[in-house]
């Protein structure tokens, strides 16, 4: 097993999780994608610090790490918003009008797909296919897949995400 040559970028305990994945794979360069998955799962996105650290630990050139990180759609290079709304744009969802849903969110939130609102409240993302085609059109609100979405449903959910007061009220009601 090869030993890491540098210390983590900060004393954040979460680096231990990343170290764990690298150790499990014996610091082999071919574990790069697995390690990037762990970084994203732990930190929410791939920061420059993280990429440099992974590059040094696995002894993979920075250019290759950056190349891999940017090649795959699943990896995010900027921090996600507090809430995420993933609109599926797969074939079945497209046939059932996902483009209209996307437009509706873009209009309400004032952002384009792949962007996060200025206050960091909402990220709007599109997915190639969630595999929930039987329930098309499907949208993922904060990790929860929801099927048979209409323009009204998505508008309502997104407005709650955007409006902090409304959100607080909702939490109070649920409590």
């Amino acid at each position, binding site marked *: 097993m090869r030993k890491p040559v540098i210390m983590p970028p900060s004393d954040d305990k979460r680096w231990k999780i990343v170290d764990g994945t690298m150790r499990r794979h014996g610091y082999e360069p071919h574990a*790069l994608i697995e390690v990037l998955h762990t970084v994203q799962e732990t930190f929410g996105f791939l920061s420059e610090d993280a990429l440099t650290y992974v590059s040094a630990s696995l002894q993979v050139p920075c250019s290759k790490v950056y190349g891999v990180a940017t090649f795959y759609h699943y990896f995010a290079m900027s921090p996600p918003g507090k809430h995420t709304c993933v609109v599926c744009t797969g*074939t079945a969802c497209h*046939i059932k009008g996902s483009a209209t849903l996307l437009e509706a969110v873009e209009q309400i939130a004032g952002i384009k797909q792949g962007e996060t609102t200025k206050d960091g409240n909402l990220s709007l993302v599109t997915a190639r296919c969630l595999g929930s*085609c039987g329930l098309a059109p499907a949208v993922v609100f904060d990790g929860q897949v929801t099927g048979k979405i209409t323009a009204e449903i998505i508008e309502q959910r997104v407005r709650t995400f955007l409006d902090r007061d409304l959100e607080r009220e909702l939490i109070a009601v649920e409590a």
Partner: protein
Amino acid sequence: MNQDDLAIIASESKRDDKLYDHVIKVCVAAGCLSANSEQVKTQLESELKQRGLETCCKVKGVGCMGLCNAGPLVAADANDRMFQSVTPYDAAAIIDNVVDEKPAPPAIVMDSKIDFFTRQKKIVLENCGEIDPERIEDYIAADGYHALFNVITMFKPQGVISQVTRSGLRGRGGAGFPTGLKWTTVAKASGNRKYVICNADEGDPGAFMDRSVLESDPHRVLEGMATAAYAVGADRGFIYCRAEYPLAVKRLRVAIRQAEKLGLLGLNIGDTHFDFRVEVRLGAGAFVCGEETALIASIDGGRGTPKPRPPFPAQQGLWDAPTLINNVETFANIPPIIRKGGEWFASIGTEKSKGTKVFALAGRIKNTGLIEVPMGMTLREIIFKLGGGIPEKRRFKAVQTGGPSGGCVPEQHLDIPVDYDSLASVGSIMGSGGMIVMDETSCMVDVAKFFMDFCMSESCGKCVPCRVGTTQMHSILERITQGQARPKDLELLQRLTGMVKAASLCGLGQTAPNPTLTTLRYFMDEYRAHIEEGRCPAGICHPVPARVEVCA
């Protein structure tokens, strides 16, 4: 662990089930889970406990039952009773019905004798909706791992391959390469190390067969892979699964742990000298990684760009070792083929396409979900009998098979049998099994543009014909949908399709023009309406004809 131990686990598991008068099965695959089936299950359990019925009636989480649009689905008593769109509030009524024979509310009662269920033939999906995917004992009780034990104790590797060859099984990933031939090549290739890879990178939008199999019956895939490893002489395997399928990944990992614990995977399987370790590797959202050489590059931790073939992965694949790559559904077919013999499998289906095929029905169709039918059934039967036809009395327009690599089949070809060769003869492909039905509200130019947009952004960029060609075709299609088409655009589009098909490096580029080609072939009138009349017959696009600027 030997064969007797396996039989003991099977009989104990069966005996446990017989202790109960009723077993209520709740679908806990991704589709139904997103419609709250977990809460339904909890509510049923607590309701039984409240009534003191937990000794006579058991609630079990099972894999996909198929009819996703009616979820969450609940079934009881050998599927004679089925319930649809169940909410936690219906728990009491379901128990009343199952235990006390009281009539259930008509809104949740589902007829289990509809064509959707009765016209299917289940081989790959035989355990889906029957067993608990997170319990290896359930799988063993359903004859699981018996085939693997037979193979490693009684078969020579060559014997396994000859059964697979005799079955006539062809790769279920889409291209339909004979599985037996692939296994033979890997078995014959020289090398100390060999690998088996399961391609679970189901990137086709509109396809979810592999996801359902992995979520509902993960052990079947592991058993198929171990059998293949024995046949070709590999001792290490990888399952390359999409990161977008977290539940499938979780269940696979649980299954691998369970199988290792029982000695069904790992070192000295079944007290023989056969070793086989399996690892899950996550994809990261790149469609091109479904291509064999790109997939290998991705497992190696690099960018998923394909390489020219030959050398084929069967000779020189992962880390330059001979590598067998098969799709999830192909591996899932292996255990029953070994159990019942190659001839049995070859007796199902058509002359050149044997066995069954799992399809994911979606789009403008009444019954959306997963079906498994014998090869050779007509498209019309699948769509109008099993699928229940088009809702809201609209007219059928086309069915898209094979995702971004496939084509759109119009009404006049609905009577062709579904097999590899017939679909190819009308310009489409079998593909991995996605079937998207479109009615008159879909614009075929828009559909062609949609797929071209997909291929354009999924092109890895390595070869010019695919990288530039898909972008050019997309911009022409966009001009057409916007009513800005130039007079020679159609001709240019036709020429580009031929060029991209012939000159691209891998399958992605070679098949990317298919949706455009088939729509040009069957729906030229729609293209003409956009270009010549500035009109979209389906009302999806808003073509605004280019105004001719007159110089003053």
